[in-house]
């Protein structure tokens, strides 16, 4: 599915592959954040207990996340992803995202890699002490703090702020209202029109 105009009044914003990638990441992030916080905060730990179960949930969710991302990349519409990557690379607000959204996407991508690397080192360091570094836990913690703040900001724009929350529709059903896109992303709509006209 290409972006662009669909039925009247609607514009396709995100392909099925892009949405799959988003929701795989979102589901994994929430599960990892929840289980991670229960392992991390003594008060939650005491309240929930069951540490081995939480640790299993955390580790297996991370593994499932990696597999699911690879599957989406392998089976999905890579052309739509390449186009998104191109937009992110130019960092110009002429595509579907404004600059804040682009920076959020770039940071989320980089943090995903860093979470995976530091998380793997935490897991593997328990098995081979040569891979246990003093800073690994610190890095994993800091990533959590920064990602948590980004996540809260993301939720605010996607769920609460009235002028932007229609964008959630783009990520759930794939399309946004044309008049909304004209207001929020005029460069994108203009570029679409110059492509099709």
């Amino acid at each position, binding site marked *: 599915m290409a972006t662009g105009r669909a039925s009247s009044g609607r514009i396709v914003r995100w392909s099925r592959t892009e949405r799959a990638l988003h929701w795989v990441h979102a589901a994994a992030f929430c599960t990892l954040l929840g289980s991670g916080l229960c392992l*991390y*905060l*003594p*008060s939650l*730990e*005491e309240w929930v*207990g*069951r*540490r*081995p*179960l939480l640790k299993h949930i955390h580790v297996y969710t991370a593994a499932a996340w990696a597999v699911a991302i690879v599957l989406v990349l392998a089976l999905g519409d890579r052309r739509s992803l390449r186009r998104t990557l191109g*937009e*992110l*690379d*130019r*960092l110009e607000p002429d595509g579907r995202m404004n600059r804040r959204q*682009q*920076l959020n996407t*770039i*940071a989320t*991508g*980089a*943090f995903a*890699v*860093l979470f995976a*690397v*530091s998380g793997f*080192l935490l897991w593997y360091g*328990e098995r081979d*002490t*040569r891979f*246990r*570094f*003093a*800073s*690994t*836990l*610190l*890095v994993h913690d*800091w*990533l959590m703090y920064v990602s948590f703040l980004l996540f809260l900001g993301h939720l605010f724009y996607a769920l609460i702020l009235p002028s932007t929350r229609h964008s959630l529709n783009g990520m759930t059903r794939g399309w946004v209202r044309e008049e909304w896109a004209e207001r929020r992303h005029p460069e994108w709509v203009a570029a679409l029109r110059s492509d099709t006209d």
Partner: protein
Amino acid sequence: MREAREPRYGRAAFLTLLGGGLSSLWWAGKVSGFVSPITSSVSQLLGNLFPVGGWRIYTISGSMPIFDPASWRLEIGGLVERPHAFTYDELLALPRAHQVSDFHCVTGWTVRDVHWGGVRFSHLLDAVRPLPQAKAIRFDSLEFAYNDSLTLEQLRRHDVMLALAMDGKPLTRPHGSPARVVIPEMYGYKGVKWLAKMTLVAHEPTGYWEQLGYDQDAWVGHSNGYGSS
């Protein structure tokens, strides 16, 4: 088409974040040490809201033992003349020691200036009279299967104690109530929490984490892959 020659700011931002993050595996520890006066005061503030305070609580079984003052005993036996099971009140009646020391975890976190209150092991050993062949003590936790050991020589260090209180209050459940071993010069896994039993032995046994590859002598900065050893 706009292509190739345009600056790749997005890629640059991604790679900068990635490079910064990966290299932080090397520098994060130093930076954290440098800014810790600031962050520790912040975490002190946060600690009043959420009981974080820099501690992380680990259990091996998944649930923290519950301390019942009526039934709890600290059994001391093995190579001793007079085995004895101390009640909580008996421990409280022993001469009280206080100290401020740093707590280091082998996974890399540290809590500075922890105020401990408790008893020195010498008072406990005097009561049970170790036999000459006793060279080490095995500590067993109420949390089943967790145990560790120290040599009697290590136990005689001036800042080793059986802690009953932390920061002026009786030990809380996450911190090992009612009694835990504190040996500041070693990583935390040597400090058995929820202590239930001490057994004097001739040879230092292999503890829970040691069986999983951790060092027997967990000197801070000189064991488990840290420092030169």
